[in-house]
Structures are given as structure tokens and as C-alpha cells.
């Protein structure tokens, strides 16, 4: 299966054209889409995450790998849906109200997608009501919030409170991150998980849904 090892390498190195053509060839040859994803593509993104945390990869490398992953996923996803495969979970993600800084949010979304999660990207400047709606009406298992500014991070607490008031406490997990956010802050506002980097966020989401 040397061909498929190349798929791992293509995702790891962010070679989107190769990743896509390798997936297409494999699918045409009758490969199991679930196996492509679970054995080659997700492990490649996990390695990207490891390299990022080890400071071997930085944001540009991470985004380029995520782009290759996304291209390959687009070919695989319809087959997975047709086969009734279950995703790792559904994550609704956005920056909190007033915060327009979406670099961190996009990194986390890309890594979660690479980790096998379905992503509902709520974008920037997301109100507590919109987060609640994503949980109640779109079936999100996890709400992931990002804030870059110390001035917008109180919106995380407002959203956690809104989730409680909507009676969704415990039914949907909340994870948070962003430059000024700490584990202590997460504990103080009652969030279920915290990560200070995009790769760690995948680990946290997996733990929360385990």
C-alpha cells in the first residue's frame, strides 16, 4: 500500500493536488473511504498537530496542511455519508460577540475538521443566542468559542450562562480558547474544556465526547 502512504505524506506536507488525486485514484480503485480517512488522513493531521505543538510547524504550514486535508475530505465526505458513517461529532465554532479576529478560530476549525469532526462555522461576532441555536437546532455536540481580546472574552461567560438557561447544560459541551484565555478562566466561567492551541483543541474535543 505504498500509494496510500503517499496520501499520508501529501496531507502532512500540505500538497493539496497530490492529496486529492491520490484519494480519487484510491476511491476509483474501490478503497474504503472510512479507511482512507482513519488510517492515513486523520493520522497525518494528528502528526501536523504534533509538529505544531513541538514548534516544528507554524501557522502557515498548519493551514496549508489543513487545506490539503479539506480538498481530500471533499471527495471522501459524500461516500461516507452514503455509507452512513458516523463522524467524530459536530462542533459549532465561532468568535464571541464583538470579536472579529478569526485566525485562531479558523485554525481550530481546520484542525477539528482534519480530526474527523463535522464543523458548523458560525463565523465571527457570534451572539450567545446563535451559539444556543446551533446546539438546539443544528445538533451541535460541542460549542467552541474563541476570543482574542481581553475586552471580548466576557462574552464566553455570557454564552455559557445562556446555554445553562436554555436547559442545555451537560447536553452540549463547551470549549474555549484564544490568546487571553486560560484554564483558570475556563474553570471560573464553567466551560468544559480549554486549549491554548489548535492541535490541543482536537484532543479536548475528543475527550469531551469520549
Amino acid at each position, binding site marked *: 500500500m505504498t500509494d496510500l502512504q503517499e496520501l499520508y505524506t501529501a496531507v502532512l506536507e500540505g500538497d493539496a493536488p497530490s492529496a486529492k488525486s491520490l484519494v480519487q485514484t484510491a476511491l476509483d480503485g474501490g478503497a474504503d473511504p472510512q479507511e482512507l480517512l482513519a488510517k492515513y488522513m486523520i493520522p497525518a493531521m494528528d502528526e501536523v498537530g504534533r509538529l505544531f505543538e513541538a514548534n516544528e510547524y507554524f*501557522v502557515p504550514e498548519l493551514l*496549508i496542511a489543513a487545506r490539503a486535508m479539506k480538498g481530500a475530505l471533499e471527495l471522501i465526505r459524500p461516500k461516507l455519508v452514503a455509507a452512513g458513517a458516523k463522524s467524530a461529532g459536530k462542533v459549532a465554532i465561532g468568535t464571541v*460577540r*464583538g470579536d*472579529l479576529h*478569526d485566525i485562531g478560530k479558523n485554525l481550530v476549525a481546520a484542525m477539528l475538521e482534519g480530526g474527523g469532526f463535522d464543523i458548523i462555522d458560525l463565523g465571527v*461576532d457570534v451572539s450567545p443566542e446563535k451559539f444556543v441555536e446551533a446546539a438546539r437546532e443544528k445538533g451541535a455536540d460541542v460549542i467552541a468559542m474563541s476570543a482574542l481580546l481581553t*475586552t471580548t472574552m466576557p462574552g464566553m461567560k455570557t454564552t455559557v450562562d445562556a446555554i445553562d438557561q436554555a436547559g442545555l447544560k451537560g447536553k452540549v459541551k463547551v470549549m474555549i480558547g484564544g490568546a487571553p484565555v486560560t484554564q*483558570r*478562566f475556563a474553570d471560573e466561567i464553567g466551560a468544559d474544556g480549554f486549549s491554548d492551541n489548535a492541535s490541543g483543541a482536537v484532543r479536548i474535543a475528543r475527550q469531551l465526547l469520549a
Partner: protein
Amino acid sequence: MTNIVTELSLAKPVITDGAWGTQLQMRGLAVGDAPDPWNLDHPELVEEVAAAYVAAGSQVILTNTFGANRVLLERHGLGDKVTAINVAGVEISLRAAAATGARVFASMGPTGKMLAVGEISAEEAREVYLEQAAALRAGGADAILVETMSDLAEAAEAVAAGVAVGLPVVASMTYQRGARGFRTLMGETVSACVKRLTEAGASAVGANCGMGPEQMVAVVNECTAAGSLPVWAKANAGMPRQTADGTVYDVGAQEFAVQSLLLRDAGAAFIGGCCGSTPEAIKAVVAALRP
């Protein structure tokens, strides 16, 4: 070349100011609302913040224009207000600074778009910063501060824009310490940043945000080793945390001032505070550094 930045740095350390966003929130800016439009809507409250730093002894104060670039203002539907918000921001700080003759360095922050992955081109970024820099000059700023930059390519465009409108520019990056030392989010080293920003025409280089004064000392040392420009340093006063009384910060004014002595000893020319710092903290820094 002699300009106001170089001149001020000869009498170092120069005390700059502290955080603005949290000060504006204390005066009623709603969580999540953009601070910059307040230059037009509530100039008197913005001036209170500027005046508080002038009264605390800041020799250089900034302007409430950190996010007043076209890319960010358009997201608030204020794309037609770029010039007005920037001009007003400088005028407000100048009014407050007149009390002591403090200098006004006008703030330009990131666009939020990454050059590294093509979300915005270098040419577009240059245009965005030229527009903002021209307005800051029209308002009468003494210099421009390009700050909280995580992408060296974007910072270099902002610096070049400031130089192009004829103002001296200070360039301040945000670094994180990892296994491979201090790097920007994009992976650039302190040394790479200092060299490129110097080439782009900066009159001083340095760092703000992301760390407290103790870690900032190591960044100042790297800046000094990598070039010959005066060094700008604005460290955080601890990390914010949530309490029943709202958001508070770990490091008190006195502790922050004591830690700031380390920055002076490392040779930083401009010393102030970023997230969590207050007029009280700056007052304590002045007392510690200019007894």
C-alpha cells in the same frame, strides 16, 4: 536620521502608556463593541483615558485607532469612516497630551487577514495601511506605532506605509515562547523581525502583548542583539480572570512597576504596559523608573 522617536530614545527610558480597551469598558463601552468608533461617538470619554495616562506621567501616549483600518471597520459597516475615526483619534490624544507636552504615537494594529496564506495580498495590505497612516498624519500624530503584529509580512507593509506618509514608525511584534524560542504566530524569529522591520524603515522595534515583563526581558535582549534601533516594550500585567466583580488581572501596579525595572536594565528605550495595565500601573512605573 533624526526624528522624534530617535530623539526621545536618547533620554531613555521613556515611559509610554497602558491598556485602553479595558479603560473604555470601565466608561461604558459594551463588551463586544468596537472601541474605535467612540472617537466620533464619545470623544470626551476617550479623552478621559488619554488624560488619565498623561496624568499618570506617560511621556508617550497612543491613540484609540488600533482597529481603525478599512478591513476591520468595513466589518462594522464603517468603511466610509476610516479617515474620520483616525483623525479624531489623534486629535483626542493631542488634546490630552497638551497638558504635559507628551508625544502622541498613533496606533495601527493588524487587519486580521493573513498574508502568509493569501487572505490578503501585500499590495492590498499596503493600500489599507497607507489610507490609515495618511489619516493619522493628517490628524497631527508625532509618530506611528505598528503594534500587536503576528505576521512579519503584514507588519513590514504597515511600517512602509507609515514611512511613505512621512512619519517615524515604531514596529512592535507579538511573540510566544515555544520549544524553538520566541516566535511570531507565523514562526518568525525576533532576529528576522528586527532585520526586516529595520529594512522597512522603522525607527524603533520591539514587542507588546503575549507575555509579562519578565519574559519580555529576553525579547528585548534579542532585539538588541539583532540590530541597533531603540527597543519598544509593552508587557502584559498578568492574565485576565473572571471574578464575581468582573474581569480582574493578576499582577498589581506595584509588582508590574518592579518588574519593569528589569526592562530598563535590559536597555529598553520605551517602556509601558499592554493588556491588564492601568493608569495606576503606569504611575507606579514612572515612580520606579524616574524617581
